[in-house]
């Protein structure tokens, strides 16, 4: 119970690669309460399970996932009244201008490349969660 039940902000990491998700969690767990979902479906199930008063403050959403990719999951999140207000930051391994353009058209909170270091990631999240 080390990182629950206090007033840490809550971040949900959605990435189909458990190793990467774990790494991100390890990066941020000292400062944020971080949960992991390895698919869009799991993420939405999770978001419905979380009690309203402990709601997720930010979602880090991987762009490249099988079945439903990041943009698809994003659309699902936006259509669901329960999740539509949660800010989403995309994680992308391949930040080509075309992909970034496609992502940014969805008007997410932002995007961050998977090459980001721990400090960059924390700084970025901290900025979004002010």
């Amino acid at each position: 119970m080390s990182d629950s039940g206090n007033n840490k902000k809550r971040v949900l990491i959605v990435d189909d690669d458990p190793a990467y998700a774990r790494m991100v969690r390890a990066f941020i767990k000292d400062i944020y309460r971080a949960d992991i979902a390895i698919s869009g479906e799991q993420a939405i199930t999770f978001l419905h399970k979380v009690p309203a008063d402990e709601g997720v403050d930010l979602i880090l959403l991987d762009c490249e996932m099988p079945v439903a990719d990041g943009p698809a999951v994003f659309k699902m999140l936006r259509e669901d009244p329960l999740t539509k207000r949660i800010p989403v930051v995309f994680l992308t391994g391949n930040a080509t201008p075309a992909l970034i353009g496609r992502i940014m058209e969805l008007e997410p909170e932002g995007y961050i490349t998977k090459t980001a270091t721990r400090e960059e990631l924390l700084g970025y999240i901290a900025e979004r969660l002010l």
Partner: protein
Amino acid sequence: MVRVIGQDTMLHISFGMAALVFNIVLYILTCALGTDQVHKNLKFRTLTVIVGVGNIISMLDNIFRHSDRFDTPAAIELLLLLMVFLFNVFLTYYMSLYMEGFFENLKYKKVITPINQAIVISSVVLTVAVYIWQIMIYKGGNITDNVPIWVRIVLGYIYELYFLFYVVILFVKYGKTLSSRAGFTSLAAFAVTIGGVLFELLNTFGVGSNILFNYFGAVIGLYIFYIGVETPDYQNLLQSITELDEARQSADEANHAKSDFLANMSHEIRTPINAVLGMNEMILREAEDDTILTYAENIENAGSTLLGLINDILDFSKIEAGKIEIIPVDYDISNVISDLVNMISTRADEKGLLLEFDFDQTMPRYLHGDEVRVKQVITNILTNAVKYTEKGNIYFCIAYERAGDDPNDVYLKVAVKDTGIGIKEEDLPKLFSEFERIEEKRNRNIEGTGLGMSITMSLLRMMGSALEVESTYGVGSTFHFKLKQEVVNWEELGDYENAINERRKDHKKYREKFIAPEARVLVVDDNRMNLMVFGSLIKQTMVQIDTAESGAAGLELTGKNKYDIIFLDHMMPEMDGIETLRRLRNQTDGPNTTTPVICLTANAISGARESYISSGFEDYLSKPIDSGELEAMLIDFLPEDKIREPLEKKTVSSDSNIVPEELMPLMGSSIDVKAGIKSSGDLEFYKTVLKVFYETIDDKARELDHFFEEKDFKNYTIRIHALKSSARIIGAMAFGEAAQELENAGRAEDWDYLSSHHPGFMGAYRGFKELLSLVFAEQKTDVGPEASDKVMAGIYDRIRSAAEAMDYGELEDIIDEMSGYTIPEGERSKWDSIMSAFDRIDYDAVLEVLDQT
């Protein structure tokens, strides 16, 4: 009507037949030797046919209409006249089509082509109409004399002139795009052909007729075309050129695609490397086994090198793919110089190279250009110089000259000269080619992709400059370039080079050791850790140190003892440094009224020195204290007779580059161990300081929370100020920065900032406890007791509810907890299944495993 006088019909027949034969020969030539693929050739063949048909018509016209020998029916005579007109329209029209083929990318072709076609059709319609009309109103006599003059002018001149004019316009507008051969040939041929056509037309009026031109003009024109541009040789050549061009284009495209691929791949490669390095960082932070830590450190070194190489490739491929842009901004050249000097000094020092700087003092300081790329270019050249120089020196010069053409532009002249291995003349071209490294064998121990110089060159080229090299093999090289930059402000750079040289010299001078065992100094600081650091930093000088933890305690000591120097912390609770200094000077009967007092401060902003001196201090030292600066201060302010040469050269025991095993868990964490060891003087001391930091976390955190909740800005700021110093000493730089921000906010009583940042900051602060416990806490036992059935049942229940809640953190905690136990034999396979599901973060699978039994 005026008849052709003195011309025999036979003459017309022989001229006409001769012209026809020439035409047929030309046609056969183009068929037999032509290059059918080229569309112009097909058009040319058609043109010969039209000219031939024209010749026949003209011949028939001359024989049957103009000659008296035949009594030609009126209907045929009219037909012949109109056919002459019509075929001339066709000829000029087709000529214009043929000429169009010489030019590429005609702008208005889409509009002009239908207009031209409509005009040709209208001429046909008009001819038919005139023919019917004239036949209907024919009342005997010479039918062609009755044809009104406007018909002759419209059909015989206006249409033809329209197409001729169109061709002339084409030449005027696009003539420059033609090769001179095609241009001259077509111009000459056009003139001759048109001459023929015009004479032919004049002939229909019966004036100025020239039988030679009449029949041969067009044919001669066609022969000129044939020899000039339609010969198979020339067409083959053109075709080869086209093919080469296409080949080049597709090669360019392939190259571009390759660069794109490389740029994308580098990114793809960088992502997993980063993951590897990131996970490795976690190992370095969390693992306790020394062997594993050594392995992980090796991974880190290799990984960082790899990342550097990939970044090089990425940069290069971005340039290749045209993805790098030059982004000019206003910048201060002194910042660039300062960064470059700092960067290169470290590297040069490591290799024991001497650095010489030469920066033009009158150089304008504020410029407009792409600062990042300018810096990257010079950095590449400088690091290259250091890389390939084993001994000797590196000379780095920046000068400028005014650009002649614009009073607001200057040329930056950058030169880097080294005494490195140099480059053989035959190797010079390799320097600038991609991926090639000079003397591969000899330099194989030098890291790099071989792209550095290529990147440098490309960047310079993009900024409108070029790199120049002079090199003597075995003696050294000079790299220099001239780069145009706009001047924003002509303020001069000033004596920058001296300032830098001075600073570097200072550094060296004070490295010489001294001792002063008779000297006695007092250090007053509310932070006990600072006092310890201070003591450690000057331990080698054997100076006697007294310490006090508050201004009041310090004043008590100054009343009793005579000191050579007093170091006063600025920020202290109750009585700060300035107040303490004032009271010290008021101790008129005390022994220290004239003792030099140095201020210790963490707020080393520019102008600080002046303000401290005006407050009565002799000088100030910024924290974290640099041992060199502190020793310099001692030499400056201690009485000279107390300073001595060291008795014997003590070997410096602590190498700050070696991190001892017990501190390995901190590698890669937010605590920079190397910086910490450096700022605290030696390793043993660093460990003490670190331990104090670790042990006081709980108390101090409670205190800070208390002041925060009470909104006691003053005490909060003072405590956080002290914490900032401690953080910097142990090497927790980022944490120190955060403390600095909070301190600023506290001083400004910025409650908004404090309330939003304090909790996170405290989280990080308390987080150090966990991190440092890796160093200081007792070792855990390796194998725990076997878990009882009851324990397992409880654990399964907890895992189930955690998996149902999809609570990753809770699951991880439970599994961590279980690592203290040995899993009973009977539960092993179930446990392993749970672990494997957990590894995949598959909550459903975890529940499935639990449900199976």
